[in-house]
């Protein structure tokens, strides 16, 4: 039982971060039908920017929580501008090109960001300083800490705010309209270019948040750190039904829990033949199962074959 609760907490923490990144994928996919392969790299840039700010100001005597907030703000600003530029320079010119072209561009962009980060920040692993008290906190026999609790709470608050934005504001309505049908939305006075830019900016802010969480939770940053979270988050988005915002959240959290549970129990279940280093396989196994059994995802609507 202890393992169960421990893995549940781990899964929840992991899933929260997946959910934040998955939202970025799903919003972009919902509006321009593009798998933004560079999204995981935005998370990485966020984490590295935050690391830079933190290490620069570490000796200035600013309290840890303020430093974390400051670095988060910096990461969000940098990531938002970066994603805005990526969309404007690399994806916008290809909006009417054959479907594969933007996808290849996105993969190239992912590789480019990774390479540039490697040049800028050098390829070694960098320890991320501990900024919040990391004393263990006991919950029902499982241990966690301040960072993990904050990750889950912040994610919950962010998701609520995002739902308010999408469902309650003019911009949100414009985004939903553009996702539904860009041409009709345009006729109704929505400017698709603005909406798409806004979508990329919001996605980048969420990814930056996830990146800082990732860095604070795992305590190290590096230029390749964005790849796996990006891939898993996309899986989460598909799992929940791509283009569907609540789906991305549900998908992210469930994927995190499935992975943590799988890693915790696979050793016992297979009599020690397969160990927890097979953790990464669960995400893909789930993905393949979901897509073969329920291609529209958990909360997705069935799309006609011609879509």
């Amino acid at each position: 039982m202890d393992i169960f609760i421990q893995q549940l907490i781990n899964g929840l923490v992991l899933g929260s971060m997946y959910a934040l990144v998955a939202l970025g994928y799903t919003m972009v996919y919902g509006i321009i039908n593009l798998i933004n392969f560079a999204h995981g790299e935005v998370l990485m840039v966020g984490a590295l920017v935050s690391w830079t700010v933190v290490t620069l100001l570490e000796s200035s005597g600013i309290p840890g929580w303020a430093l974390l907030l400051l670095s988060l703000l910096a990461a969000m600003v940098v990531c938002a501008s970066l994603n805005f530029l990526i969309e404007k320079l690399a994806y916008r010119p290809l909006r009417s090109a054959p479907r594969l072209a933007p996808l290849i561009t996105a993969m190239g962009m992912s590789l480019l960001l990774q390479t540039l980060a490697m040049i800028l920040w050098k390829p070694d692993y960098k320890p991320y300083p501990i900024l919040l008290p990391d004393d263990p906190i006991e919950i029902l026999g499982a241990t966690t800490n301040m960072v993990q609790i904050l990750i889950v709470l912040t994610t919950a608050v962010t998701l609520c705010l995002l739902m308010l934005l999408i469902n309650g504001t003019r911009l949100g309505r414009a985004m939903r309209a553009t996702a539904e049908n860009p041409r009709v939305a345009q006729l109704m006075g929505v400017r698709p270019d603005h909406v798409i830019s806004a979508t990329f900016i919001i996605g980048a802010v969420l990814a930056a948040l996830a990146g800082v969480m990732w860095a604070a939770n795992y305590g190290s940053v590096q230029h390749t750190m964005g790849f796996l979270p990006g891939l898993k988050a996309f899986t989460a988005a598909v799992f929940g039904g791509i283009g569907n915002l609540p789906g991305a959240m549900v998908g992210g959290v469930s994927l995190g829990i499935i992975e943590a549970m799988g890693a915790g129990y696979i050793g016992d279940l297979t009599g020690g033949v397969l160990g927890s280093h097979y953790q990464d396989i669960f995400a893909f196994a789930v993905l393949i199962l979901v897509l073969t059994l329920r291609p529209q995802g958990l909360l997705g609507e069935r799309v006609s074959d011609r879509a």
Partner: protein
Amino acid sequence: MTRSKLIIFVLAAVLLAVLPFVVLPLGQAWVRILDTALIYILLALGLNIVVGYAGLLDLGYVAFYAVGAYLFALLASPHLAETFPAVAQAFPQGLHLPFWALIPLGAGVAAIFGVLLGAPTLKLRGDYLAIVTLGFGEIVRVFLNNLDAPVNITNGPKGVGSIDPLRVFGVNLGETWEVAGLSLPSVTLYYYVFLALVVVAVIISLRLQDSRLGRAWMAIREDELAAKAMGLNTRNLKLLAFGLGAAFGGVGGVLFASFQGFVSPESFTLHESVLMVAMVVLGGLGHVPGVILGAFLLAALPEVLRHVATPLQAMTDGRLDPAILRQLMIALAMIGIMLKRPRGLWPAPRHESASPSAAGSKA
């Protein structure tokens, strides 16, 4: 074949035949670059069957490459005999299967994997297919990485080494061969074997393109629903595309393993899959000369840079080492070429696809 075409053809053949001798004085490393480029051309041609002809975006193609490479590595190295006493007893000399058995074996096993991995994805299209195949590619890599316990099959991240070089007609490709007063080093011998296989692959690709099968694939690419309505068995056709494409990948893997003499999971990352898709798409989806051009450019040019760019490294305090520069070039090429020529550098002539705007959009 018209007269001018014949002349171009003969010229190209002569050029390809003497190329290693022209390049060799510059150093064996340059011939190695050619060899690597030929392997990539073979892989890109195989992927072109899946992505270019049938329009199935496969981001896990590296899995079949890995299957071929590991198959050869296990059958032609002492690893299995060292791990399993039974194997050592049955083959006291070690497993050293001949070239003629290994190429079809690599193709066959990879094709089986292709069909197996293709089967669950039949209902998926476009982006979903891409992400599931990507997942398969990663799963294969995770298994290669971890199958050193409980039974050591793949030797885990350390990889399998001391793999035999290929032997063709009794010639050991791993050593210099003295023939008719010429001394052909190992890299040149590999060049000719790879070239021969690439020529076979090109012929197969071109023949497939104009065959009933090729036309059926292109019908699926353009509009699967319509193809089905016309009575095509889309399920079998798609599986066949996966299988055939994978077979090319398996052969590429066999060649890679024997050429390198060492395989490890690190050679089969998603990065490789992306690179192969980039070769096909940059060159020109579904157009054999374009695909060859794309594969050659992406495989060879960055390698050339690697040799030229050493001074840059000193200038930038080690940050811009040749490997990083190569990655940077590939990334910029992928973005730049797509922005300037979304159909690729050398796309298929328009008349092949009746409606140009629809071509490739289903992929």
